[in-house]
């Protein structure tokens, strides 16, 4: 089950370029690109649309 989703930024030009997903009780992580055809990206959009779920943005 998803624990947190955080925006990630390109280290060189600081543009928003993906998400880091962490899971409850797990040391598994996903780095998800901004690609509409990526099923994890699609799942993040669905997750974010649920009331109470928030994507963390700590900036570049």
């Amino acid at each position, binding site marked *: *089950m998803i624990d947190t989703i955080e925006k*990630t*930024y*390109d*280290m*060189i*030009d600081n*543009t928003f*370029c*993906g998400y*880091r997903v962490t899971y409850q009780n797990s*040391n*598994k*992580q*996903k*780095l*998800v*690109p*901004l*690609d509409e*055809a*990526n*099923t*994890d*990206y699609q799942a993040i959009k669905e997750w974010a649309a649920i009331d109470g779920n928030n994507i963390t943005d700590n900036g570049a």
Partner: protein
Amino acid sequence: MAITRIGNPAIANIREPNFRNIIINGDMSIAQRATSVTGVGDGDSGYHTVDRFKFVESGSPSTVFTQSQSTDVPTGQGFAKSLKMDVTTADASLGADDAIYVNTSVEGQNLQYIKKGTSSAESLTLSFWVKSNITGTYIFEIIDRDNDRAISKSYTISSANTWEKKTITYPGDTTGALDNDNARSFELIYWLGAGANFSSGTLQTSWGSRTTANDAVGQVNIGDNTSNEWYVTGVQLEAGEVASDFEFLPVDVNLNRCLRYYETMVTGTTQSLGQALYYNSTTIYYSHKYRITKRAVPTLDQVTSNDNYQFFRNNGADAFDGFDSLSNRTTTIFFELNVSANISGTAGQAGFLRANNSACFIAFDAEL
């Protein structure tokens, strides 16, 4: 393309068309993720063992499986592996919204030749080997995800604990053209258990708009007892009304087809990842070229733990837990990664990355 079997004995050795099998890894021979995973149940929809075959549950079934790549195969048919679903926790009374199945999905651009949605739509013939201790009615469903259309047909397991070959032909669908792109157009489903919301109607044995109550009417609940198990291998779906012999592919070809969707890069310690460099004093930059171009820009799956990786440079090494972010240049061909936590070095120093922990795991996931 229309497929016609040639009956003339003089040319009987002419082979069937290559790559006629729409299903990838139908012989279950590739399992990059793992060969056995326990505790697969509610909340565990995903790919666990055999490539391209996904466990899916919805609702909240209590059934729990061990999914594995098994060496139990039909005798004398040339198969070495099968997919096994072994019930470890039973749920004899599925809730109305509970669904349990194994699916595989197909990109629309690989299905254009079946001409779905035209007057020339091809029939499709499915063949496979299956075994279970539970005899009875099972359902295989094809869902057209582009047009929300579906067709379901049943097969019967007649003899317990006996490998049986099943062949099912699905008529061509003259309605609903499939998108010519890299997204999922066909979802192909082996039902294993279906609550009332998926089984209370009438089995939809002709193509039509999907009604979920008609998906899996009559499907046995394989999960009703912990002694139950279900195996499948030799899955082939091809154009036409005749099932040809299973199309065995060389392992490198089969693996490459799987790599389009999933690529395991590191599993365990002392494995080399390749060359990297300090972009600046607090950032390691690393670029990885996939073995095969991916279906979509992939996700990086990783396991992070203390000092999982080492960056060897300038006669020393820096340890770090995992990769922190991807770059905006990550594509279906290259993955660019950054490390910035707990490291420091000299900008411009190059070196190489190596896994440093048995828990290390990196994979690229572009599955459907």
